[in-house]
């Protein structure tokens, strides 16, 4: 769709310098999403030169206290992470164990008979209660799990480092295509809501993460009857290299090539750096 031009090589230089203007970023992301080996090679070449620039910074030494402070901060986080995983294992509330069978006193035969009848009744009632307790326990566990799951995803929204993501249609996409969401580089999770993504019959929309090494499929978008889709990504890709999200129009089931769209890129949204 988008043909390689000399200007794209200049945009590759801007990309590795982190100096792309907004419109150029979209232009380059759409161009690369369509697959351009020339630009990919250029990016590798220029990236090495940009790394050389880093070496030109005047030598400086931080205070020795920084080392202790930084290592302590990492150690604290490592401990917290270990603690959190232990805690989550125990987050489902334990319910009281059911009691063992009741002790039955031996006094009179009559009393024994009476007690036998009574205990059968109690046992039945107990069984019923136990049954409903089991059901409640299962429901509770399911709700807890659902709640944890929801909390995990809402955490993407209020994460300290969360970035807003907004996808806009390219010239190849219908003007009413919309995509908005949030991406958390720390956990690599993302939630993106798309509107008007009901693909024509025999086609699917496919989501891509755009990296310097090329596009990576993030799966096919499955809209509801109204054309809306809420995409929850467990791993949106490496935050150090993720540059943009893009949507392409593909044959049903997605692009035959997992590393490149086969159809036109209809939406692109850069990832704020």
């Amino acid at each position: 769709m988008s043909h390689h031009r000399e200007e794209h090589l200049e945009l590759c230089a801007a990309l590795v310098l982190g100096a792309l203007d907004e419109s150029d970023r979209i232009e380059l992301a759409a161009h690369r999403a369509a697959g351009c080996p020339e630009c990919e090679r250029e990016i590798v070449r220029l990236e090495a030169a940009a790394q050389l620039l880093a070496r030109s910074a005047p030598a400086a030494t931080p205070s020795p206290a920084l080392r202790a402070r930084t290592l302590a901060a990492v150690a604290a986080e490592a401990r917290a992470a270990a603690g959190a995983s232990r805690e989550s294992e125990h987050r489902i509330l334990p319910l009281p164990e059911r009691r063992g069978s009741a002790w039955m006193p031996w006094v009179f035969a009559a009393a024994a008979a009476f007690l036998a009848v009574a205990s059968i009744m109690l046992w039945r009632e107990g069984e019923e209660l136990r049954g409903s307790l089991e059901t409640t326990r299962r429901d509770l566990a399911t709700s807890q799990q659902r709640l944890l799951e929801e909390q995990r995803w809402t955490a993407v929204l209020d994460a300290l480092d969360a970035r807003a993501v907004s996808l806009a249609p390219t010239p190849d996409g219908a003007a009413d295509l919309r995509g908005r969401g949030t991406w958390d580089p720390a956990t690599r999770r993302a939630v993106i809501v798309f509107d008007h993504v009901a693909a024509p019959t025999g086609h699917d929309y496919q989501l891509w993460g755009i990296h310097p090494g090329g596009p990576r499929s993030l799966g096919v978008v499955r809209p509801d009857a109204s054309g809306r889709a809420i995409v929850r990504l467990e791993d949106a890709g490496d935050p150090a290299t993720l540059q943009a999200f893009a949507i392409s129009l593909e044959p049903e089931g997605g692009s035959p090539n997992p590393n490149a769209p086969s159809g036109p890129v209809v939406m692109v949204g850069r990832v704020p750096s």
Partner: protein
Amino acid sequence: MTEPDSDRDCMERLRAGDAAALEVLYDRHTPLLYSVALRIVRRAADAEDVIQETWLQAWRNASGYDPARGSVAGWLVTIARSRAIDRFRSLASRLQAETAVEPAEGPAGDEPGASAVAGQLRARVGAALEALPGRQRESLELAYFGGLSQSEIAARLGAPLGTVKSWCRQGLLRLRELVPEEEWT
């Protein structure tokens, strides 16, 4: 086979949750990361915060490092640079950065513990930058250390946007030529 303490081996250990591996990487790479951060944010206190954030991010995101895509140093520099530019921008938006000037803090030139190789490479890249036409060099520096976009650079230098775009690419390509590949480490 990797050496026990090679960068990539340390990244493996980091990924497995071994915080001790971070110590090795810290000692090896902090001089470079700090130099880059200080060049961008200009104040030692800010640069130190950037370094702490950088290592925390490297720790949290160790699995994000892909050896196929480049060196560990390059990955770390990318994190530190983007952290530093974020910080510099938020400082600049509070108009504080305008008053800060040259990196007055931190001993320049003399780095205890840093390898002579790093010093040599620095000199080599410095000389290569000097050899570039002035505005090509300025464009590269404003982009990489100043965090400016190409249109901002064009406005700053009073040059057409198209020219700035070409300076950036030509400058990078020339830098590659001037510093022999075997000296990149």
